[in-house]
């Protein structure tokens, strides 16, 4: 029975939320996710932090890829809100931003961000991150 439980856990799909105000970037990240051979569940999309919060409140999400600079609610505000809620403490947080300045990276690291990817990036960077996330998730 225990082995069965482990087997189920090993194939438990990963639900992912992509937050970016650019539809092109969301599509690009989604395509990279689709090309991985990992057990991916539902991939949600949000155009800003506020929309992302609504999805997090209503759906089960294990990893968030978020931009920082967005209208309505920024990625920084979103990450602050995620860090504030105990129910979301296990969500993996990956920032994908054009702003690679050290100050910005340090700001978000204080919000328990697992990884900071600076645009421009190659698709394999996201793919490798997903592999690492999946291995952690299924452990």
């Amino acid at each position, binding site marked *: 029975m225990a082995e069965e439980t482990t087997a189920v856990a090993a194939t438990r799909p990963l639900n992912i939320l992509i937050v970016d*105000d650019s539809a*092109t970037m969301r599509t690009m990240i989604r395509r990279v996710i689709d090309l991985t051979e990992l057990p991916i569940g539902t991939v949600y999309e949000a155009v800003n932090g506020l929309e992302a919060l609504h999805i997090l409140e209503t759906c089960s999400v294990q990893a968030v890829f978020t931009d920082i*600079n967005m*209208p309505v609610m920024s990625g920084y505000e979103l990450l602050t809100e995620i860090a504030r809620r105990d129910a979301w403490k296990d969500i993996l947080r990956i920032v994908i931003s054009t*702003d690679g*300045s050290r*100050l*910005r990276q340090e700001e978000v690291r204080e919000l328990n961000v697992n990884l900071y990817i600076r645009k421009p990036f190659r698709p394999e960077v996201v793919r490798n991150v997903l592999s690492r996330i999946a291995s952690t998730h299924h452990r």
Partner: protein
Amino acid sequence: MSYHESPAPITADAVDALFVAVVEVCENSFFAFVESCEPDRFAALVERMVPLVEQTPSPPPKRRGRRSGRAAESGRPDRPKLSEWVSASLTFTGSAFSGMIEVLLPVRLARQLVASLLGLSQEVELHEVELLEHQVFDGIGEFANMICGAWLTDLSGTQAFNLEPPKVSRMPFDWSPLGDSSAEGEQGYRLCVDDLPWRIRVRSSND
């Protein structure tokens, strides 16, 4: 080796860094080989571009036949033609300086770059997938955004900066990159990707 336009208050190092940012973005995310262009070559590439026959979309006619024929004969003016050139611009504020960056490129190059970013080059080339104008505009706004972000990251060091959302629009139909002289205080590059010409220019608002 790169060629940049008229002298301006933005430092030479910053202008060099802009070219580095352009190459980084083109190669890493858009899988494009970018070259700088001497003015003569740039002009030749612009003049060599075969104009695309594009017109503003209009609703399909409700009825076909004699009425539309008469309308055509009555000398009704043609729908306005669209410019081949697109501008993607954004303003930024940073610790080093604040200002505006603008990318000017032909629609066909914009489409090619966005298709490449999305991993759809082959599908678009074979007309299996069509990128709509709003998708191309969104993607090329991101292109300008990435260049500006990469450039300012290099210039700003530890300091953060802010980017406004990019604005993308067609240039006026009669606009040409050859007849458009740089404004005072403006710096930039003439460039090409696959023999398609494009320009990038920056202006500091601290001038």
